[in-house]
């Protein structure tokens, strides 16, 4: 993990929580220990969508993990939902390209990306096509294995 540490210090959990609250005043945020948070909020990617309940878990030194609490995400028959880790958390950025670091606000990065992910998920569920683009991990790359397993 040492190679991943940025030059300047990370945004504190308090700042992240504050920004998330500003981004969505109706959301809730719970602190876990001294260096973590669990945020819960809602998202409706289109006016015709259902309201999704989202949870973001974040611990300093790790990448934020985003889950959809409800409604339960659905597969298309046997086909697995694209761009997820183990069909549990949403893969919103490519850790190999360092698209996220802990000086970024979750409210401005993870949250909008999760909404966009839901938007493309809905279209995929309807038509079977994923239009959001994205990368697929290199199985030999250790970073994603370490970060997500």
């Amino acid at each position, binding site marked *: 993990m040492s190679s991943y540490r940025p030059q300047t210090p990370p945004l504190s959990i308090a700042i992240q929580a504050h920004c998330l609250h500003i*981004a*969505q*005043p*109706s959301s809730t945020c719970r602190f876990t220990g001294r260096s973590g948070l669990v945020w819960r909020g*809602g*998202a*409706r*990617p*289109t*006016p*015709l*969508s*259902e309201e*999704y309940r989202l949870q973001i878990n974040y611990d300093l030194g790790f990448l934020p993990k985003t889950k959809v609490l409800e*409604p339960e995400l659905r597969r298309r028959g046997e086909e*697995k*939902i*694209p*761009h*997820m*880790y*183990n*069909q549990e958390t*949403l*893969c*919103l*950025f*490519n*850790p190999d*390209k360092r*698209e*996220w670091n802990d000086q*970024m606000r979750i*409210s*401005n*990065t993870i*949250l*909008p*990306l999760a*909404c*966009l992910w*839901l*938007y*493309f998920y*809905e*279209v995929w*569920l*309807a*038509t*079977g*096509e994923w*239009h*959001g*683009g*994205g*990368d*697929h*991990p290199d199985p030999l790359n250790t970073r*994603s294995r370490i970060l*997500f397993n």
Partner: protein
Amino acid sequence: MLHELDPMGGGPDVLRDEYIDQIFREAAGSLDLTPTQHAEVVKSYTSVGEWLDAPDSPLRAYRPLVYVQGSGAIGTLTKPLGRDDFDIDGTCVITVPDSVTPAELKWMIGARLRDHEVYRAILEEKSRCWRLNYARAFHLDIIPAKPKLPHTDLTAIYITDKELRLWKESDPKAYIAWFNLRKAVARVAFTGRGAQANVKPAPQQEAPAEKGPLPIVIQLMKRHRDVTFQGRDDAPISIIITTLAAHAYQQERSIIGTMRSVLERMPAFIDYSLGYANVANPTIKAENFADKWQKHPDREDAFYEWNEKAKGDLDRLSGAKGTAQVRAALIPFLGEKRVDIVLNRMAEKTNTKRSSGLKIDTKTGLVGVSSGIVVPRANFYGNE
């Protein structure tokens, strides 16, 4: 380009309507000719006109004029269900002497078309017209006509009846002018300009973003009709839907608002004062577009059946929630394949917009809003 939603601009119902408008606009665009196909259509009928009017053409003395009429001229052209070729209706007016019979007029035009190497190979004779079957994209029907009053500016023409025995009055240009007036009543009233009898013959094709709601609603209603009446022969004909819708239109701004109001009001414009259903041609009052209904009362019933179904389907779409319901509610309007094409295209456009700053309202999670957080550059990832 997709229109941006304004989460502060109205309540949830307003946003829902705006989003359905986006879907409808995209759908109407996908049921229309592509710009390339449109250019081909213009080129085709222009070339036909030039061929009929060429220096060595026997028709040249009769001043042939070819123009597009009907749906191709008023922006309501709708891709047929399960086929790829559009029906484009064109008129060929030649100022022949009074002694020329309807059958002779048709023969004269056909003979000249047959003289052309390319047209000969794609020419097909229909009962009242000549059809040019261009590869895949469309076919052009050329309806033989002569001016009602030769050597005047009047647009009224005579066309032949199905049996090629009688002359039948028609005025496609006046219909186009009437329709254009109806679809933009406000603007015309504002500038104080009345209907122009001599409209430009070129078929217009406005970008779907600029097209007013009325032509879009007519396209969608025709498509809904096609989906509803698959395998049946009693479907309401396009000219009835178009004429009643144009009467019923009250300058609503939104597509869904127009469709709600037009579906509700259009039956009221069928005139029963003479004891039978009359959908008068607004430019030739004696012509009843619903004249077949007297011999086939099932077609009259079918019109009302379609109207009721469309209203119910629109209500279902307005109340749909979640992907599965929305997709199911769109199928009666577009057909299953077209729904997926439209939803996929909208998603592609949304994804393309990421490079120029796609915004998200983090309070609601709405994607593609006019003000919000710009989605950061990132690639979705994952082991699945």
